């Protein structure tokens, strides 16, 4: 497959994630849209790594850096989700809502 199909697919998923972050007020759905954006970037990194491997066919390990970066992105995302859900639970315990408009009192 040409690389521009993968670029367009990843951009489409990323734009859907951006629309979700901008329009939804539910903190958990905003968080899931951020996960969707991370996965769009992961898909594009894997596609570029396979493209690089095909272009530099001589070296056997050319392009494996991209897939290892995807692995590290997954590691960081797992840590981020655990901390973020703890913050959402604490927010729900304090204000009994997960509407992120309640967070604008952080500016006072």
């Amino acid at each position, binding site marked *: 497959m040409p690389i521009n199909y993968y670029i367009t697919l990843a951009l489409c998923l990323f734009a859907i994630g951006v*629309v979700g972050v901008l329009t939804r007020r539910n903190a958990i759905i905003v968080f899931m849209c951020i996960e969707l954006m991370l996965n769009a970037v992961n898909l594009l990194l894997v596609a570029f790594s396979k493209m690089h491997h095909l272009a530099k066919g001589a070296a056997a390990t050319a392009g494996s850096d991209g897939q290892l970066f995807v692995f590290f992105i997954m590691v960081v995302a797992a840590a*981020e989700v655990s901390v973020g859900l703890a913050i959402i639970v604490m927010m729900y315990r304090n204000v009994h809502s997960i509407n992120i408009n309640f967070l604008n009192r952080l500016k006072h």
Partner: protein
Amino acid sequence: MNITQLLFWILTVIAIGSALMIVTSKNPVYSVLGLIVTFFAISGHYILMNAQFLAIVNIIVYAGAIMVLFLFVIMLMNLSRATETLKNKWLQIVGAIAGSCLFLVLVAALKNTEIKKNLVEMGTGDIGLVKSLGRELFTTFVIPFEISSVLFLSAMIGSVVIGKKE
């Protein structure tokens, strides 16, 4: 159109449709289910590109661990009913327009790149297998790998401290 292209288009339609389901559904549980379907479709794309290790890790870590965590939080806080009270139509319209503009600008900017016709290797090549990725991970990337264990420890302590009842 051979079988690889057919599978590519099927997985693309599934991924985009379920991603739209995340954004549009009122019930958060349906959003979680849509995100799980999206993750499976992206894992299917990884398998098509012969990145088998990442496909399995994506299913285990994302669809298996992270989404179960989301479902636990939604069910513990009893949020499965529709709770969004704000019905600001203009905000939603403006957000959709802004996201579409971002998509259009990025596609237009990347439309005439030189690498546009470069092919992605499908189904062959062994850089995505566990053997070669593991060798790279434990030789070149061994220091970031060890640092990520410290990151996990700090995330674990942080979530316990934040979630603790004082």
